[in-house]
């Protein structure tokens, strides 16, 4: 461990509020390495959904990084947050671990889509990330987390540690859902072929029958994506639907994530979202 390496705290603080028929980014505070440019209104429905691309100057995470994000959606606001692209997590010095903490508050009737691009774990990478969501009853959200491993030298050197925790609670209560992993390597044998993963959590105040049908439809549709192994099921307390995806590469995982997002949006809004992506033509895979 290099004791002279300074820790690098950084913060992003965004607050969205609803004003009439618009969602306004009322507070946008950010410090290096975060970068924010303009926001976008891309969707016919919900027309007030504001899209923000969270960028960092290096687009990568290093062992000494200490990043924090705070995202707040006021009553009735709608926001779609993503990142500029898949972000490498580089090798950390022994004893060091990159940390990122995301705190999300979603007030009643608000609608959040938090869909950051996947992490790419390089050899020796060490990352501890948390996403804490405090959600009001009646709010809607979709949150995803994804990663893959990359071994450019193909010498079998993997990441050192990945800890990732997504916690969802309502109005500050006990966790309604916790998805936590803490691993130092992937599986072995046939399982080791799978190196790209994603979890998606969709929460909405919908009847359980509708959520069950969404899970069934999603599971069937995910099975049609080449190279993807995935399934959807009801989250604890029937608060929504969770999706697990695994594949040998990120492309299939991205396709499954896009499909899930589109299906959720169509269920809620009656139509697919406007494209935020480039490259993959993911709208080939739709849940009708």
């Amino acid at each position, binding site marked *: 461990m290099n004791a002279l390496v300074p820790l690098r705290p950084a913060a992003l603080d965004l607050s969205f509020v609803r004003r009439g028929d618009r969602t306004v980014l009322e507070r946008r505070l950010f410090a290096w390495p975060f970068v924010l440019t303009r926001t976008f209104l891309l969707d016919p429905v919900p027309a007030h959904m504001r899209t923000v691309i969270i960028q960092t100057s290096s687009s990568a995470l290093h062992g000494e990084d200490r990043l924090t994000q705070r995202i707040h959606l006021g009553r009735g606001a709608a926001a779609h947050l993503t990142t500029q692209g898949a972000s490498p997590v580089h090798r950390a010095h022994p004893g060091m671990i990159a940390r990122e903490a995301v705190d999300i508050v979603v007030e009643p009737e608000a609608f959040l889509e938090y869909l950051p691009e996947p992490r790419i774990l390089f050899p020796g990478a060490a990352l501890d990330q948390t996403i804490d969501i405090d959600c009001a009853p009646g709010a809607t959200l979709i949150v995803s987390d994804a990663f893959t491993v990359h071994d450019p030298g193909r010498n079998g050197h993997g990441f050192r540690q990945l800890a990732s925790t997504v916690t969802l609670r309502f109005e500050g209560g*006990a966790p309604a859902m916790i998805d*936590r992993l803490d*691993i130092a390597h992937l599986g*072995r*044998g*046939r399982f080791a072929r799978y190196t790209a993963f994603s979890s998606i959590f969709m929460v909405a105040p919908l009847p359980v029958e509708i959520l069950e049908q969404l899970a069934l439809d999603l599971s069937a549709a995910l099975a049609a994506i080449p190279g993807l*192994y995935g399934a959807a*099921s009801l*989250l604890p307390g029937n608060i929504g639907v969770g999706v697990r995806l695994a594949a040998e590469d990120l492309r299939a995982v991205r396709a499954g994530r896009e499909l899930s997002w589109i299906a959720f949006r169509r269920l809620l809004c009656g139509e697919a979202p406007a494209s935020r992506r480039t490259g993959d033509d993911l709208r080939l895979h739709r849940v009708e």
Partner: protein
Amino acid sequence: MFDTEAALALLQYGDSAYPAGGFAFSWGVEGLSADDLLSGQVDLDDLVFEHLAFRWNTMDRILLRRAFIAADLDAIAAADRTAEAATPSAQMRDGSHRAGRALLGVSVRLGGSLAIAYRAMLSADARLGHLPVVQAIVYRDAGIGFEAAQLLSGWTLVTGLVSAAVRLGVIGHIEAQQSLATARHVLEALLAETPDSDVQPSSFTPLIDIAVSRGPSRHVRMFST
């Protein structure tokens, strides 16, 4: 010194004939086999390793310990609610519930005092009754120590997986014994290290989660999970 009484208790509670409904659960063996991701002994050994190292050791074992050292029923229930919240897959939750409640039912019939008291709480909270928590209750009632309780919890998972593989025709009886021997070494290595007392439950078994969660989409299946 060999503890005959403890060994006999392990044999009784670790016996696959113990009437706790374990035969109804394959914990992904059936689904992965149906999806062409598991065939033969090597794959099964990898699956057992995945279950033990990436879920049992980091999730079930932690919850078992919390329930085993819990001072009262409320503390046990807190561990149970954590199990519920920390299992995003509905089918995995359902399997854990069903297996746990079946095991608890047997202990109630056998007169286990803690089991009887805890079952009274279950009717008021549908989140309660997860397998590792109930295992702690049942083994406490049986007078089994914590070290042995961990062993039983891990070993009954192993025998359930291997038994399911035999019944599904993935492996034969001789291969099953070889897989059990391999799993013994995995479990022994895991038990040799004690998790920190403040560690939070975690798991990373995406392929198993997916295989089990795809259950409702399958037309024919033998097992609940």
